[in-house]
């Protein structure tokens, strides 16, 4: 009912805009046909024109009034018969990850409502595009909270957008579940009472790769990373953790290409010239594909074990097809090989609904909305403080297995799959993989407490 009412408002709004624009076009056309010479001669025309101008002005005023009214009346809806969840993401900026993500939460939404909704009400997700800008994200967040009366916010892909929403949530005292942002800051040194985060962070995923790296006992390491916070933290984390495990390790070259603009040939050449024994990379997307192609052609990876965060995620791996660099150590998501009952159930439901296989984004979207639902269920209410209390230490079932949201820093203990890349039937797969539980790859509680601002 409520959704119907809103969509009607939207329709009215659209119609008034169209009338307004049409009126203006009409005028333009009239003006165009008016021969300039005749202007001050015909008084009949004069009256006509004035009338037309009156009409224009009236239409203009009416249009403005209609807009103003729709702005006023589409305000807070009356008694809510649904539970609304606000979702914000950069759909047009990162479509490769976010289309599967959206399919993920849409599946979760369907499942929640099929099983009777929450607290006896239907659940509705109101989704907005932030066009990749934190400023826009904060504005639509305000819209979702004040106009749509959502019970909580979820979403975000890029770290700076996630941080902006998280700070907004703190200011507005609203629960926010960060879905994808990987930055460590969102739960640690810029963490707050109102923000929880689902995905294993940069630090955690680096920590998952370090044991294998240390086992190889290679002395000279070269590092390549996209030059922004994610790549910088991954690099700093890797250097720190590996040096602790393997004293005397050397980092002989560091390349920091701009995100999305790697000069792959030159970078690969510079790495070869540094004569490393092994390579650690946090590239992804187009940068990774260019790096792999140039690196393979120029023989960079021959005899050099290579570690790459995220490269096993279908979003990035599938593009490489038969050029997948075999033997790389990666974190990722081998969806076709996971045989746990919870994952099989998810996979069947996802493939039935979408006729497509899930990417890691699908898992993130699905689990974020499921976390929100669980928080509401456990709290028995949509009161922010009650939901926060419920989420602290909350246990979750997910397609990847059980995890929980830590009371200490609001980070989930969802893990990631760590394994090696291989080629099979002309496409890349992960082999020798294992699930690394996120809980095992976090700094000590004391360290976390020291980083997190006091509440």
């Amino acid at each position, binding site marked *: 009912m409520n959704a119907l009412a809103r969509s009607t408002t*939207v329709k009215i709004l659209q119609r008034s805009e169209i009338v307004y624009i049409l009126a203006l076009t009409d005028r*333009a056309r009239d*003006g165009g046909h008016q021969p300039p010479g005749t202007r001050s001669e015909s008084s009949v025309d004069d009256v006509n024109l004035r009338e037309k101008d009156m009409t224009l002005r009236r239409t203009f005023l009416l249009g403005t009034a209609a807009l103003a009214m729709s702005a006023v009346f589409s305000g807070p809806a009356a008694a809510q018969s649904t539970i609304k969840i606000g979702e914000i993401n950069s759909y047009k900026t990162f479509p490769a990850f976010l289309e599967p993500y959206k399919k993920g939460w849409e599946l979760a939404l369907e499942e929640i409502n099929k099983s009777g909704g929450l607290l006896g009400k239907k659940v509705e997700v109101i989704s907005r595009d932030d066009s990749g800008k934190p400023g826009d994200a904060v504005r639509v967040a305000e819209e979702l909270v004040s106009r749509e009366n959502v019970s909580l916010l979820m979403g975000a892909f890029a770290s*700076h957008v996630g941080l902006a929403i998280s700070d907004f949530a703190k200011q507005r005292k609203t629960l926010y579940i960060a879905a994808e942002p990987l930055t460590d800051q969102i739960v640690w040194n810029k963490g707050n009472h109102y923000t929880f985060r689902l995905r294993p962070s940069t630090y955690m995923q680096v920590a998952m790769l370090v044991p294998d790296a240390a086992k190889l006992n290679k002395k000279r390491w070269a590092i390549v990373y996209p*030059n*922004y916070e994610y790549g910088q933290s991954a690099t700093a984390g890797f250097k720190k953790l590996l040096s602790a495990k393997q004293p005397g390790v050397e980092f002989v070259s*560091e390349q920091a290409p701009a995100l999305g603009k790697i*000069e792959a040939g030159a970078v690969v*050449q510079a790495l070869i010239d540094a004569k490393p024994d092994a390579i650690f990379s946090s590239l992804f*997307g187009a940068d990774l594909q260019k790096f792999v192609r140039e690196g393979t052609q120029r023989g960079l990876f021959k005899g050099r074990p290579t570690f790459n965060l995220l490269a096993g995620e279908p979003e990035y791996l599938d593009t490489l097809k038969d050029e997948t660099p075999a033997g790389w150590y990666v974190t990722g998501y081998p969806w076709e090989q996971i045989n746990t009952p919870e994952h099989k159930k998810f996979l069947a439901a996802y493939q039935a609904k979408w006729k497509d296989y899930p990417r890691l984004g699908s898992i993130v979207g699905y689990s974020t909305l499921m976390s929100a639902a669980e928080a509401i269920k456990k709290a028995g209410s949509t009161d922010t403080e009650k939901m926060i209390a419920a989420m602290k230490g909350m246990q979750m079932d997910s397609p990847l297995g059980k995890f929980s949201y830590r009371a200490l820093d609001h980070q989930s203990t969802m893990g990631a799959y760590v394994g090696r890349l291989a080629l099979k039937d002309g496409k890349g797969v992960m082999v020798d993989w294992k699930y690394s539980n996120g809980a095992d790859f976090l700094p000590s509680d004391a360290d976390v407490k020291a980083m997190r601002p006091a509440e």
Partner: protein
Amino acid sequence: MSFSAIFVQLLNGLASASSLFLVAAGLSLIFGVTRIVNFAHGSLYMLGTYTAYSLVQWFGGGIPGFWSGVLLSGVIVGLFGALVERLLLRRLYHAPELLQLLATFALVLIISDFTLWAWGPEDLLGPRAPGLAGAISIAGRRFPEYDLFLILLGPLVLGLLWLLLTRTRWGTLVRAATEDREMAGALGVNQAWLFTSVFALGSFLAGLGGAIQIPREPAVLTMDLSILSDVFVVVVVGGMGSIPGAFLAAVIIGVLKAMCIGIGNVHAFGIDFSFSKLTLVVEFIVMAVVLVIRPWGLFGRSQGAPRAASTEPPLNLPSPALQKLLLAGLIMLALLPLASDRYTLVLMTDILVFALFAVSLHFIMGPAGMHSFGHAAYFGLGAYAAALLFKHVLPMELALALAPFAAGLGALLFGWFCVRLSGVYLAMLTLAFAQIAWSVVYQWDSFTGGSNGMVGVWPAQWLASKTTFYYLALVLCAGGTMVLWRILYSPFGYGLRAGRDSPLRADAIGIDVRRQQWLGFALAGTFAGLAGAVYAFSKGSISPDALSIPRSVDGLVMVLMGGIQTLTGAVAGAAVFTWLQDSISRQTEFWRALLGGIILFLVLVFPQGIAGFIRERWEARSGRSEA
């Protein structure tokens, strides 16, 4: 770096330079003849890559399939370009300057959504070039054969273009039109045909430049914008309209980037410096240096002053009726909180901020005649100054009050260099400075928070409610707008316009044109900074995108949409653009295409801008009643 390493990095740089040159040559040709600043050039490049990917898949592997696919996609993009010129841009040659820029911006939006719709969101990695898939040994290193091919392709295309331009009749006409297109027209050259063919050739080069990338990089949806700034830099460094200049600039930038990567980290005098990180901004540093030393690029020449067609009518004082209307509008804005919900106020605060930003941009673009493509620098400087002052030392109110002056100082510094240039070169120098400022903010983690930016920049308690903050924004932004407008009617403002319309005469009657422009630039920067400071506190956080290129482009779009020749245009443009973005993105998945469509529609129906159109009607009416 050993000698052989330097040599191989040189080859890497040349390979990158070749593909950059192809795309830049097309842009340079188009600009030289039609004077269109083609924002859609990157989109044509992207279409070339995607089309080539599909064609090569379709034709199957093998040498003929691959190369015919690559060539054909260039041709297809060329035809598409011709179509765009005939159906769209042709209608706009008599519109106020820069309006074509707005139309091509709309094309960027439409093409990017079209590509997403047609090819899907995932990156598409094409096959390697058959016959050139391997690597050969050079200086003890394996070097891809395809890169060698690219190194040869650049000079080859340069040679062909040179022959075309100097040895054919068509080329003579192109050069004549580049030199002086009115004169070429007066001598009976069929301009319509010439413009279409030049646009088609330029588009073909862009498409081909995209197509030859498939063995090197995947087709991704962001490649349109990521190459756009690079090719603009190449074209401007080389000198707009100069093909050899574009080639030289591409080589300089390509090689410099490769060398930065090759050098890597340097430890000297106790400081670590990463040349690899410098690749983020090196092309803009090159552009700034070149333009400061050579105001028309390496091989460019002074652009002849445009003839009468583009002089603007004088700026009249607003009529009493308009003044009443503005006052009524202001009163309505002041009363708005009585009748609106919280979100409307938030949206209106955004609109006010962008209105002041657009008005300050219009101040230098319109009356002062200096087109700025990097105005977001001052918006961002204001925002960051506010955030930094607030975080480190000052209460919010003082931070807000002082931040605009930080932006003003920045504008004073950058402006000193910029006002020495004119036209597109000035615009590109502002862009270069904006990018340099952006990269500093983006990299300086310990001070500005780096790419993640800063959070917790909220207004003081008494201003925290949305209504109070709305009033604060209203007072500052409407106030700022009025101050800027008032200045335009002061002797200083008249001097600015005199300097724009006739620098020589202005100089002769004792106006120091350059000084006027410099101060005007700084003033506009200060008010952009004010807008930025209000923006920072309205969002509670700030990140480098506040001074990025897209923000500058948004400002341009607002000014042009509203109408560059009217004062109120910037306000109307800011309001319509911000509101459209907000409401459209909620309605449809393909909102960017819809937004592009609406902008195209506005451009075609109101080439003089929204406010310009209303004024025209108004004047037509009052002109008649007086008679």
